[in-house]
């Protein structure tokens, strides 16, 4: 019923490009969100619990 098997015509490519552009915008905006402290704290906790195997000041 729908004409979906038309391959990669220019229309389909344009639609796809537009969709992908928006996907990147969504992903990038999520990527640029400020990170909450909880992750840094969690990693610090885990590191402390594991003991100082090699305490480089990195």
């Amino acid at each position, binding site marked *: *019923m*729908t*004409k*979906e098997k038309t391959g990669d015509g220019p*229309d*389909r490519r*344009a*639609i*796809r490009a*537009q*969709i*992908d552009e*928006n*996907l*990147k*915008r*969504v*992903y*990038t905006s*999520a*990527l640029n*969100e400020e*990170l*909450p402290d*909880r*992750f*840094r704290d*969690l*990693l610090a906790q*885990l*590191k402390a619990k594991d003991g100082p195997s*090699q305490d480089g000041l*990195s």
Partner: protein
Amino acid sequence: MKSVAVVVPLSPEDPRDRLAGAIPKLRAFAISLTREVSRADDLVQETILKAWTNIDKFDPATNLDAWLFTILRNTFYSGLRKTRREVQDSDGVHAATLSVKPDHDGRLALTEFLRAFDQLSPEHREVLVLVGASGFSCEEAAGMMGVAVGTVKSRASRARKRLAEMLHLEDGEGLFTGTDGATQAVVLRSAAAGF
């Protein structure tokens, strides 16, 4: 005589030191999957914990991001399985009532796109973010999703088609001509409901 280049690191690298650097990407993926920041953060937290305690299972020759993404999506889906029916029902309700049109200039507003994106199933959001936004190859995505490459491609194609339908971009209508087809919208919507 053959010479083999061997890269000897000065000190064995602990992949756990790279976890912090992977968090932003991991979180962006989690937000894309859950569409809810607090749920995403819980998911990232759980992923970090699992990665930390299972770091011996990580092969340093492979991509750490891919490994972490795999943990995150598996955690997400095992949690989702419990509420699966609910989620699908609400998807159906939204899909049936949604009506979004492109701007008059043919460019989608991000809010409109997001509304449509939110209506996709998590599987569709996942595949689109992996291959369409985060820069993983279909092969890498297939590895993370535990499916064949062909499945990744067909799923991504269906997901794009679904989005195009919801956004009334099918076959370029609206996109190039700015057609405001109310009838068309009805047709497309009932076609979409068949999925």
